[in-house]
């Protein structure tokens, strides 16, 4: 049952939550994924766990709004509050199923840049990797989340903060990083999968003009039927239950 009225970022949270499968250990970072994990564990993935690079491990939503993974509601009644090496050890030994990543720029192979971008002559410094490079290299699969803006989709990212798939179509076969690499990209207008290491259109958000949306990419984006992944669908709207949860976890709509 879909709700009548929702914000674009509420749909992104819903779509991101759908990428967490029950039983998954999810590596959760800043912003929207903070809400998405809480939605997933409250709905279809009750046996999922979240690990945060600060050292927190949780098996349920926080009982209060969280700006950051270290806000006290996220620490209170956690399963474990330990250190980063404990969390990164799980990641490096292959025990993290899915990780979330944002980016200022992404290319067709899922390489992400959060370090520095060009704007005309000027080079703008961004905050940097944080744990993103590590998640990109070592999570079982990654889900990329970003606003749908044409300047973010580039033929070549200015700096590979978080490596994606190899550019020779070999997926990660020839790539030194042990993780599975990008599995999905969720923007504010559509969702994409990866086949043979390259992006393809999976679903278009309700009300979005498909052709205009695809025109934001500097390359011809492949579609699901072209890579044998069924038809391009319409992204499901957030359910009423999901919207309720999102508005409980983010009551002032700060992140959404």
């Amino acid at each position, binding site marked *: 049952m879909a709700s009548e009225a929702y914000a674009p970022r509420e749909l992104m949270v819903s779509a991101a939550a759908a990428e967490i499968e029950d039983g998954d250990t999810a590596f959760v970072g*800043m912003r929207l994924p903070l809400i998405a994990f809480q939605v997933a564990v409250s709905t279809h993935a009750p046996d999922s766990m979240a690990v*945060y*690079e*600060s*050292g*927190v491990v949780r098996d349920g939503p926080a*009982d209060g709004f969280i*700006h*950051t*993974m*270290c*806000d*006290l509601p996220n*620490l*209170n*009644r956690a399963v474990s*509050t*330990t*250190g*980063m*090496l404990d969390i*990164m050890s799980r*990641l*490096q030994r292959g025990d993290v199923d899915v990780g979330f990543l944002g980016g200022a720029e992404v290319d067709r192979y899922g390489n992400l840049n959060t*370090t520095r971008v060009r704007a005309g002559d*000027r*080079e*703008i*410094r*961004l*905050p*940097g*990797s*944080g*744990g*993103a*490079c*590590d998640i*990109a*290299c*070592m999570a079982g699969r990654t889900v990329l989340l970003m606003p749908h803006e044409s300047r973010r989709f580039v033929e070549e990212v200015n*700096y*590979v*903060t*978080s*490596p994606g798939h190899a550019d020779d179509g070999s997926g990660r076969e020839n*790539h*030194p*990083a*042990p993780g599975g690499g990008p599995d999905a990209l969720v923007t504010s207008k559509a969702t994409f999968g990866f086949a043979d290491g390259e992006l393809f259109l999976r679903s278009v958000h309700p009300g979005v003009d498909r052709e205009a949306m695809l025109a934001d990419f500097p390359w011809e984006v492949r579609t699901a039927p072209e890579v044998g992944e069924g038809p391009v669908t319409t992204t499901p709207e957030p359910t009423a239950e999901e919207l309720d949860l999102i508005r409980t976890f983010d009551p002032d709509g700060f992140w959404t």
Partner: protein
Amino acid sequence: MSAESSESLSDAVSRIPPGSSVATGLALEHAIPFAAGHELARQGVDDLTLIGPISDLLFDQLIGCGAVSRVRAAWVGNVSAGTGYRFREAVENDEIDVENHSNFSIALALRAGALGVPFLPTRSLLGSDVFAESDCFEAGTDPFGGEEVAYVPAIEPDWAIVHAQRASPEGDVHLWGNTGIVGPAVGAAENVLVTAEEVVDPETIHSDPSRTAITREQVSAVVECPWGAHPSPVAGHYNRDNEYYLRYHGATDTQAAFDEWADEWVYGVDDREEYMRGVDADLSITEPTVAAEVRYGQ
């Protein structure tokens, strides 16, 4: 036991000379030693190399205060709002040198220092520009299975600054809630400054030795400093002052604006007590959770 057996924050910070490398903000967004950081700025300690995983605001503030010449970190900004303008501008104007890390590479570098080995191997980094554009790391080959790995060299900071819930005057420290890379950094550092919400009787520490995260021989100074991590949260003590981060973001997009901010919040106060008089948010813990009892004995 009161803090009288420990020195003042100002005395403790005065032992950190200009040009030092300082690891701090080690528990990520939790328990960031803002009080000690502001005291560094007030004392004009400069030419610092700041080391940390992510820095939620503190590095940006110290850069804005002109205290920093180099940053070795994975992320510098404002976790509530994104960009840290003082960091961004300083990098873009080539005023500071940045060694880009991932969270794991900075953790491993400090862990190598703590462990007393020159480097540690990792399966991360490879394929990224964090690795390729840096002269910090080396590629290596696992001598057992032939796998490609990256080598991360040890970092041994001159100082680590840590905020904790309670410490004995001798420097044995209980801390809880997430700890990020406090452990590796304390092990790797030449000196450690601990600011604590409470300086307690040694018997309190001895009653729960498995809670002890730092022991005295690693510690150069212990200072009682209630609210010493504001606006960041401290488990069991106070919540995060989210609005403060947002206001900072809105108020520091130019150096002139930052200077005004710093005049009020850093240079305009003598100490933490005066600083806290300027904070009117209610950050108190209204739903306390008491840890289940644990016994030792014999």
